Each structure stands twice: as C-alpha cells, then as structure tokens.
C-alpha cells in the first residue's frame, strides 16, 4: 500500500531556529495521525509544509506516491487544510463561505448540491446557513471550517489544532465527524495539545524542538516505552510529591488530579519502588502499576530530550 503522505528529510529553519530537523515519516492511507508536541515543537510548520503553503529548505514530500514539489499546485485539490487560526470569512454567512470554497475548487452542478447538503447535515450546520460565520460559537466555527475544508472531497485532511478552546461537547462531536470521514477512507493529520486526542488517533507522532521523539501506532509506542508507571493516591498528593522529589530514584513524579504518577526504569522492581516510596514516609497502600497513558509517555520521552 502506498503511503498517503511520505516525508523525507524535511528541514526548515527560521533564521537561527531549526523548526524542523530532517524529519522522515510516512502516513499510511486511511489513518489518523496525531502530531503532538509543545509550543514551538514545529507542529504548525510541519502542517503548513504538507499543505503546500510553506516551503521546506530541503527534503521532499510525496502525496500518494507523487513528488509534491513538482506538481505542487495540482496536488492541492487532494488536500483539505484547516489552519490553526480560523481561516473563514467572518463577515460572510455559513452558506456563503461554503459556496466560496465550492467555487474555488470548481465543485459544480448536481455534485455540488448534494455535497453541500451532505456537509451541512454532517456538521449539523443546516439550521445556521444564514448566520454570519463571525457570530458562531467556537465549536461551530471549527465545524464550519471542517465543512469548508471538505467541500472538494480531499483524500487528505490536515488539521492544525482544530479543537483549541473548544468545549468538551463540541470536541467529542468534532471527533465523531473525523471518525466518519476516516471510515470513508480519508487520511487525517491532526495536531493537538490535548493528549487524550492523541489517544483517539490511529498513529501518533511526538515532536520536540523539531525532532521526532517517537512515531507509530499507539500499541507499538506503548510497547516500546521503557518506563514503568505507577499510580499512587496518597492523603495529600502534593505533600507526598514534595517528599518523594527530594533525592528521588524515580524518573519523574507528576500530579494527576489527586493521584501521583511515578515513572521508574523497567529494571527497577516493584519491591524497590515500594521501598523507595515508604522510605520517604509516604504510604504505599494505594500503589499500583498502570498502563502508561500518552501523557505519561509524553512526559517521559520529552524529559529525555
């Protein structure tokens, strides 16, 4: 199977800063890739290069096996892009925005009518066609953005932090839409700073300062993660964290609500972990090993870099 996107040695600098450092990765067809990383990791730069609106200094991108750089413009019809900032016209209505993008992509006739209808229903925007885009709520704006990015039936959908500042309900609904698209064969690349969104994707790419820290399917990444993570729910998690932090034999101790997640080397046996914790005067009663969440993996891997 050819990869939907395949990037070789993508490199991009802005002045002195290396935004992307020789990235090589590929996205299989009909998969959902989550690109996750802190601010300035290069997420937006990467998506912009894939969308063809920013040039890489060196390296190549192939879309469905064709070298992107030579057929730059013609490939744009295969790609739907949703920038991080709301890219639609706030002084146009929902319908006018959709029509504009339909015209731009030369979607005509019967095909256009059915597709617009389907997208409006699919995004549940049909009651709001006459509303100005600027008057929509955050979640609705994102759904409209998605509808406009889909008007030309792209094979690949690039979404740059689409759920930022969107409330949990709208976020869930948005993901449901993404799953529906993915089911029909659309390849989706989504950048996010929500770790739980990374868990919803079928592949995961962790960026840190322009480098790929880890990439692959979630199960694979979990299996390769060489830290063991323990959960501890003491009386007062923050006091316990302070105690454990001094002269700690652990890789990291992070607060998750009222619990602590304690990461340790795999080699360190449960016995020694228990010992180390009780020696600091913290009760080990609630201690248990857990399957590391992506947030744990993220914390673990980004601290190594």
């Amino acid at each position, binding site marked *: 199977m050819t990869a939907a996107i395949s990037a070789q040695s993508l490199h991009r600098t802005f002045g002195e800063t290396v935004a992307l450092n020789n990235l090589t990765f590929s996205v299989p067809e009909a998969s959902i890739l989550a690109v996750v990383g802190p601010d300035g990791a290069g997420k937006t730069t990467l998506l912009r290069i894939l969308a063809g609106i920013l040039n890489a200094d060196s390296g190549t991108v192939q879309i469905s096996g064709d070298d992107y750089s030579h057929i730059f413009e013609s490939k*744009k019809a295969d790609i739907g892009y949703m920038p991080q900032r709301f*890219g639609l016209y706030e002084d146009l209505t929902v319908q*006018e925005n959709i029509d504009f993008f339909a015209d731009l992509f030369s979607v005509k006739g019967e095909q256009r009518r059915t597709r617009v209808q389907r997208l409006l229903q699919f995004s549940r925007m049909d009651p709001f066609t006459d509303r100005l885009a600027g008057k929509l709520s955050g979640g609705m704006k994102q759904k409209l953005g998605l509808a406009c990015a889909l008007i030309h039936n792209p094979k690949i959908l690039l979404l740059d932090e689409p759920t930022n500042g969107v409330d949990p309900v709208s976020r869930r609904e948005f993901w449901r839409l993404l799953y529906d698209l993915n089911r029909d064969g659309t390849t989706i690349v989504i950048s996010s700073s929500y770790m739980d969104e990374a868990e919803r994707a079928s592949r995961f790419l962790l960026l840190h300062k322009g480098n790929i820290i880890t990439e692959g399917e979630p199960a694979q990444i979990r299996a390769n993660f060489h830290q063991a993570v323990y959960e501890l729910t003491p009386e007062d998690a923050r006091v316990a964290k302070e105690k454990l932090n001094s002269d700690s034999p652990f890789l990291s101790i992070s607060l998750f609500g009222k619990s602590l997640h304690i990461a340790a080397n795999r080699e360190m046996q449960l016995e020694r972990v228990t010992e180390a914790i009780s020696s600091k005067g913290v009760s080990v009663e609630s201690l248990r090993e857990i399957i590391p969440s992506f947030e744990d993996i993220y914390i673990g891997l980004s601290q190594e870099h």
Partner: protein
Amino acid sequence: MNANRIWAIARKETLQILRDHRSLILAFLLPITLIFLFGYAITLDIRQIPAVVVDYSNSTHSRELIRKFTNSGYFVEIERTADQDRATELVDRSKAKVAIVIPVDFANQLTTGTAEIQLLTDGSDANTTQSVVGYASLIIAEYNSASIARQSGGRLSLSPVTLETRFWFNPDLDSQNFLVPGLISLIMTILGSLLISLTIAREWERGTMELLISTPIKPLELAVGKVIPYYIIGIVDLFLAAYVGIVIFEVPFHGSLWLLFLFSSLFLMAVLANGYLISVVAKSQQLAFQLSMLTSFLPGFLLSGFLFPISSMPVPIQIVSYVIPGRYFIEVLRSLFLKGSGLELLYLQGVALLFFAVVFSLLATRKFRKTIQ
C-alpha cells in the same frame, strides 16, 4: 485562468464590501462629499473683492469706470475717499483688497489716449492680487472699447488696437470647470488605491489568507477577482461624479462618453494595480493605508496638476510628475470636458496610462507568493 475561481473571489469580495459599512461609505459617500466640498466651499474664483475708491478726477468718465468695476460683480466698493493715505491704510489692514486710484486729469488723458489709473493691492495675498489684476484689465479693456466707440460718435467703426484677452475653453474663468475634472481623477485615485490596498492585507491580518493560499487559486485569478468589484465601484463613482459636475455645477462636457469610459478604465487599472501591489507588499492594513496615502493619494493631490499647475513647478518636480498616472488622466479629463478632444489628441496619454496599468499589474502578480514567508 479559471473563470470559476475568479468569480468566486469577485463574489466574495463584493459581499464583503456590501457588508462593510466603512467601505461603502468610503466608496459612495466620499466622492459625493468631495465633489460638493470642492464645488461649493472651496472655490478658486474670487468675487466681491472689497475695494476702496479714490476718485481725484470725479468726472463722468471716472464715475463710469467705477461703475464698470462695481457692476462686474467682482468688486464691491466699501468706501469712497479723497485721501490716498486712508485708502492705503484700509488695504494695509486688509479691510480692502484693492484701492482704485483715479488721477485728477483722468478725463483729459482719456482724450489723448494715455489715461492711467492706479491699483494698490496687497501683494502678500498673491492669489487675490492675480485675480484683481486679471479682472481689472478685462474691465478696463471693455471700458476702452466702449469709450472709443462713443467718442467717434458711432461713425468711427475702426477702433484703435486694444489688448483683448480671451480665455479659451473656460471663457468665464469658472474654477469649477477646471476643478471638477481633476476632482474625478482624485476621487478615483483615493478609492482605487485605498480600498483595494486594504483587501489583501486584511486577509493576512484576519488569518483568511492562510486558508486561501492552500487552495488551487492562482495569483492572477486572485488579483483579477479582487479587482473586479473595485473596478465597478470606480466606474460608478466616475459617472456619479461626472453627473454631479455636469448637472449641478454646470461644467460643460464636450467629449465622448465612450472615451471617458475608456480612459477612466485605463486609469482605474493603473490605480487598482498600484493599490493591489501595496496590498501584496504591506501585509497589515495600517501599513497598507499609510503606503497608499504616500504613493497615490498625496502625489495625486499635489503633483498631478489637480490644483497646482505643473508648468509652474520646479523642474525636478515636473520630472517626478511624469510617473504619476493622475497627471495624464487629468489632462485627458480636462480635454474631454472642456475641449471635446478626440482620441487623435489623447492617445499618448492613453499609452502612458496603459503602461502604468501593465507595469503595476505585473509587479503585483509577481510579488504575490502563495506561501507564508
């Protein structure tokens, strides 16, 4: 080039203009305001000039001459005195703009044909002085011919050679006839460059450009689509301004409407392409606004010959004026309105305007990058 995409851009742009009250006001209210402002309030014609009269002659002839002055409408007698110092004082204190002094032997001098009168004006007000001298010489010339005819008792048909000034194409020296064509050029400059210069910058500022350049739109399609609505506004404004000028201010129009349309289109292309170029370069509305004021509005106002005759500018500035499209357009408009010139006399200006339109358009489309820098 894909007509669908051009249409998409043009339609979107039109909707945005219609929804943006600021643009609408700028597009239609500003031209009307400007034309009435210049037509009524700022007139270059000076009438009712306050005059103090010192008539030492006090003869029928002198009284007749004074009557000629006051009946002309250009002068108003505010005081008559026999004291020249008093007259000088009035002029010094700007109570009067001119003192008309008629010598004692005026009547005698008239018979010998060497009559002289003295006009005292305030030279610091150069405009008025010029008008005073101009009007006065007209009045005197008329007086001369009338008195010669009378003296000969009507028998002498051959009058002595007198200076006869005739102002071609604007016989009444009406400044509106002169201003309105220039004003049309100015209005189209403001609208063309200002409105369009904001559009691309606005898309960058609002973040809509990032999405737009991710589509298969071509730079030329974007440019053409964006220009169309502003071109239409420009042409509507042209005919609006021309209509107000012709009907309300009674500016004569001797030329052909088709030529007016043709040359206005050429000029609009040049101005819009210039505005579009600014817009592409600027990336922020504030900068675009400043740049368009600097590069099109100010030169269009000051160096195009709109108010200040180019021939009386210093040579270096005259040279600069050659790269200002407004210069050519104003020449064309004045010719069309007042002379009714045809294409055979205006084609050079046409070529110049076409040249600007092409150069600016090329620069703008070449400068536009479909990538984020």
